[in-house]
């Protein structure tokens, strides 16, 4: 029998699931069954994926009883106040409150500080001498430290974030009981953080959100807590995952790494192309059609669930000829961070973090190499993202 059980296994080195390439050729809109047992439509062509993400008739609000789900009970999809689960005006209202912290200008203002953090982390890596695990020593550390600066908390408090975020994103790796314990600690921490900012106001991102509630009544207390928690979730695993995949892909394409070591001017274009070839997600988020919608490849009926993986869009050979090849400056370059209302809030900051971390790494260790064959690297498949468990290198 044909196996429609979603998600499909990813390819070698956690690349595009081979089933995506097969189905895109034969049946670009196909039926799958999610781990919750719900039917969903899987779209795999660039223009279908883009249309699903842009079209406001597809909703991320899956809270109504009987609505199809992707994974069984998990912290991410069970939080109705989480930005990624909101739709329409409520979503827009909450995004506006934090948007000013994530503009291109603000991201550029962070650039020197991001570079300092990366250099500090690499000081430690170098002092402890090869080999090193870049996943633990750089990829997870950098985004946590940046978010700590944004939230105005000391680095030591950030040490707990990784475990909490892993629990929030876990769909199978941890038991529900373990996740609930972590969620309790995480929420308790955020409530305490908000209390602290109310007692001694400053001018960081938490103050900005607290102010939007206390002075302007723009959000509820539950939304406030969820928003702060969401910022800690949103900026951590995604950047850690992307950064380690960028390093892995570059070290497997030595010529490109060497070119960038010599001349850093193509680095921003390289980051975009690396994110197309090897983005952090394999699945994307499930959306539900609020009415019948015509997509380029066919019709989605009202009430049907749709899955639109970005990695599938990025490997559509009709848009990206020879999709597995890394070619700098490809057009279009707009789907790496999604599209539509849920387009990545932290896009500009994420780019700065990836560019600065890679540049710092190239300055410090131009001869960087893996200590193990890439196909032997360990992957963690228990969460929404598939992440490297470690990235062992020497120099």
């Amino acid at each position, binding site marked *: 029998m044909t196996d429609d059980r979603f998600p499909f296994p990813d390819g070698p080195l956690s690349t595009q699931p081979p089933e995506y390439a097969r189905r895109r050729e034969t049946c670009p809109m196909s039926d799958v069954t999610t781990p919750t047992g719900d039917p969903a439509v899987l779209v795999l062509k660039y223009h279908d994926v883009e249309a699903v*993400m*842009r079209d406001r008739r597809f909703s991320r609000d899956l809270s109504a009883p009987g609505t199809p789900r992707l994974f069984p009970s998990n912290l991410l999809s069970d939080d109705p106040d989480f930005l990624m689960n909101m739709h329409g005006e409520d979503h*827009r209202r909450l*995004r*506006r409150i934090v*948007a*000013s912290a*994530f*503009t*291109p200008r603000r991201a550029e203002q962070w650039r020197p500080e991001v570079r300092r953090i990366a250099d500090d982390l690499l000081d430690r890596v170098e002092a402890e001498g090869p080999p090193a695990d870049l996943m633990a020593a750089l990829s997870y550390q950098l985004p946590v430290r940046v978010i700590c600066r944004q939230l105005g908390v000391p680095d030591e408090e950030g040490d707990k974030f990784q475990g909490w975020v892993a629990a929030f994103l876990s769909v199978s790796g941890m038991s529900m009981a373990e996740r609930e314990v972590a969620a309790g600690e995480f929420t308790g921490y955020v409530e305490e953080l908000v209390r602290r900012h109310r007692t001694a106001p400053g001018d960081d991102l938490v103050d900005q959100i607290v102010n939007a509630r206390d002075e302007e009544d723009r959000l509820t207390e539950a939304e406030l807590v969820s928003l702060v928690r969401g910022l800690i979730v949103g900026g951590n695993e995604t950047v850690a995952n992307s950064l380690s995949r960028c390093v892995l892909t570059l070290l497997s394409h030595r010529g490109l790494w060497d070119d960038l070591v010599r001349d850093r001017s193509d680095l921003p274009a390289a980051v975009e192309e690396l994110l197309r070839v090897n983005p952090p997600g394999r699945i994307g988020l499930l959306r539900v059609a609020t009415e019948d919608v015509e997509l380029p490849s066919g019709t989605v009926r009202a009430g049907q669930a749709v899955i639109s993986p970005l990695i599938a869009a990025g490997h559509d050979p009709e848009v990206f000829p020879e999709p597995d090849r890394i070619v700098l400056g490809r057009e*279009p*370059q*707009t789907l790496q*961070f*999604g*599209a*539509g*209302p849920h*387009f990545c809030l932290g*896009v*500009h900051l994420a780019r700065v973090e990836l560019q600065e971390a890679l540049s710092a790494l190239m300055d410090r260790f131009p001869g960087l190499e893996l200590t193990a064959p890439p196909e032997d690297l360990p992957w963690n498949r228990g969460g929404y993202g598939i992440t490297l468990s470690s990235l062992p290198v020497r120099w």
Partner: protein
Amino acid sequence: MTTRPDTDTLRIKVDGGVCMGHAMCNALAPEVYEVDDAGFNRMGEFELDPAGRGAAERGASACPERAISFPRSGPTAG
């Protein structure tokens, strides 16, 4: 001397109801698109010297919402 026909100026329309403040237009073409402190583009409909067409189109195509368009005729009344 001939006067430059109207079609020489580039007309740009930013749909403020669609803009979500991603500020991609400003990131790719800061010389054409201004955003407010929250990243939202409030420029509405405006004209630009055609020399800026490349940058204007680059910023428009980067918009995750497709909020930027290039109407051929002038603004409609009302």
